[in-house]
């Protein structure tokens, strides 16, 4: 792709945001970043990947952490910052990619080629997806969705002045339950194509 484009996908748990991101990347021939960026960070810093995964996209513990200027003792903070640095480097190098989560809508907000998207879903559709994906009961699915969405919100809002899921900060907010995951991905891909033409 000649013009640089970065697509950030923020998503509710079990809304299909991750699959949509993968589909967009595949169709447009873009790089795809999600949890896999931890592999490179682990390799680069000689850290065990399990350690990074344990604290990935988690908010810091309010009581057990403290910040002094740009320094923090919170492992969650430090791992987040490592990921943000990785994304900044990637964007600075002119790479085009789709990034799921990692507060990318805020970290890369100064890039004109950034297209921030938020994917949500109907409550019932998300519960059904969680039951199917994790083979759990409805009650467990509801709790799991609440817990994950709360964690994502806290994580995002910790590192960004923009609120997670606030439509003012995204170019497009879409409910994937209405068209289904596949058609939503097609719709978003077309939207991104048209946006790239206008860059």
């Amino acid at each position, binding site marked *: 792709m000649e013009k640089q484009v970065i697509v950030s996908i923020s998503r509710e748990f079990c809304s299909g945001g991750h699959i949509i991101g993968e589909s967009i990347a595949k169709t447009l021939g873009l790089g795809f970043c999600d949890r896999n960026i931890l592999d490179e960070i682990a390799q680069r810093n000689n850290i065990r990947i399990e350690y990074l995964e344990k604290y990935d996209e988690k908010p810091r513990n309010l009581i057990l952490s*403290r910040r002094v200027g740009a320094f923090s003792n919170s492992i969650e903070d*430090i791992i987040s910052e490592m990921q943000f640095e990785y994304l900044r480097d990637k964007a600075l190098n002119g790479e085009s990619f789709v990034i799921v989560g990692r507060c990318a809508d805020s970290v890369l907000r100064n890039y004109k080629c950034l297209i921030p998207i938020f994917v949500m879903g109907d409550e019932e559709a998300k519960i059904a997806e969680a039951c199917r994906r994790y083979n759990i009961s409805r009650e467990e699915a509801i709790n799991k969705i609440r817990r994950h969405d709360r964690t994502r919100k806290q994580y995002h809002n910790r590192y960004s002045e923009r609120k997670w899921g606030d439509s003012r900060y995204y170019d497009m907010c879409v409910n994937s339950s209405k068209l289904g995951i596949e058609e939503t991905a097609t719709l978003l891909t077309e939207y991104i194509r048209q946006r790239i033409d206008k860059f």
Partner: protein
Amino acid sequence: MIVSQVLAIIIFVVMFVLIVLDKIERHIVTLGCGLLTLLLVFGLTMHSGSAIMETLNVKSIFTPGFWYSAGEAESSSGINWSTIIFIAGMMVMVEGMARAGFFQWLCMNLAKLVHYKPVPLFITFMLISAVLSMFIDSITVILFLAAVTVELGKLLKIDPVPMILSEIFCANLGGSATMCGDPPNIIIGTSLGYSFGDFLTNTGVMAGISLVLIVFYFYFAFRKELAQESANGFVPENLPDPKSVIQNKRDFAISCVIFACAVVLLVTHAQTGLTVAFIGLVIALITLITSGRHMLLLLQRVDYKTLLFFVGLFVVVSGLEQTGILEVVAGFIGTVSNGNLKLIVAIIIWLSAIASAFIDNIPFAATMLPVIRSLAATQGIDPSTLAWALSMGTDIGGSATPIGASANVVGISVAAKNGHFIGWGKYCKYSAPATVIVVAVSMLFMFVRYC
């Protein structure tokens, strides 16, 4: 009075909670709470213009005693401008030294001097951490020492975590030895009129004895790692020359001279009569004048947020002081201890240590200062005894946990950014027992010497 007392307590508690939660920048928290103290406590409920003026304490700056009065208390209440001016001056000096490459040069030279051998390197870096922290704030010391340690760790293929943990502890310990080593000491010293020499011959002796014990403690705590690294004995051929970190020889020489002047002025300030505010201002001015075209850059890099944090903090603590809350606390400690000096010392030192392990020691020391002043007056105790207990408790207590002192946070962060994570478990396993040892030794020392 009850309403103003309740308001002062609420504002103080809200300030502490907001500082701990770290959602809003801490200087905004203290300034906001300070403003509320002025408006609600002093203005709305006390209708006391004099309390506001006493708290703002601006006129003290324009008195000769503020700049030249060795051995006298410079401010009894309100904003401690001496502390703020001194810290600002030191910030400017440290920025100048950092820019010239002083800290990297010193660390690399010491490493070369001990031939990069793990055990001597481990002990030397502990000692230099303590010595530098006697004159420079421990955050700066750890920032550079930890960074050099990580680099040496990579080159020599050794784990830098044991060294960083021991350096952090020694930085906090070294800071307790002098009046300018740690912000609580500056606050205590300027408020109660103690000199550099007073601290050195009291907290300095305790810190010195503790340092010897702590070097042994950390050596034994990490003996397995050190033995393994010594056995490896890997020293690469192409290690960087210490001189290579010096960007500009002229700037380097000037920063060394200014640092030496600062040390001499501080050590002799009881004899010369120059106050720490004067020393801070002069050192800052010399640094700025000699920095030439970098003057603006140095001024921009001063941590104004920390200075504003102090301003707000002093106002909030004044709210507690002016409304008599801290006298009540002092009275309570006096009643509990029944006037027993040993018990009072034990309470002050352990209370300060435990509190400082979890909350910022600067607001704690600022709050406790009027308490010990009142306690000394009502119980007929020499205030210096309580001051040393407060100083050692607040300075050392912060070493126990990763969040207890700023140096801990900086050291852990520098290590983690280079792939060496230090969690609560690992940190406390080594540093909490060391803290207990130093606080216990200091308490016993005080029992023998002062009680």
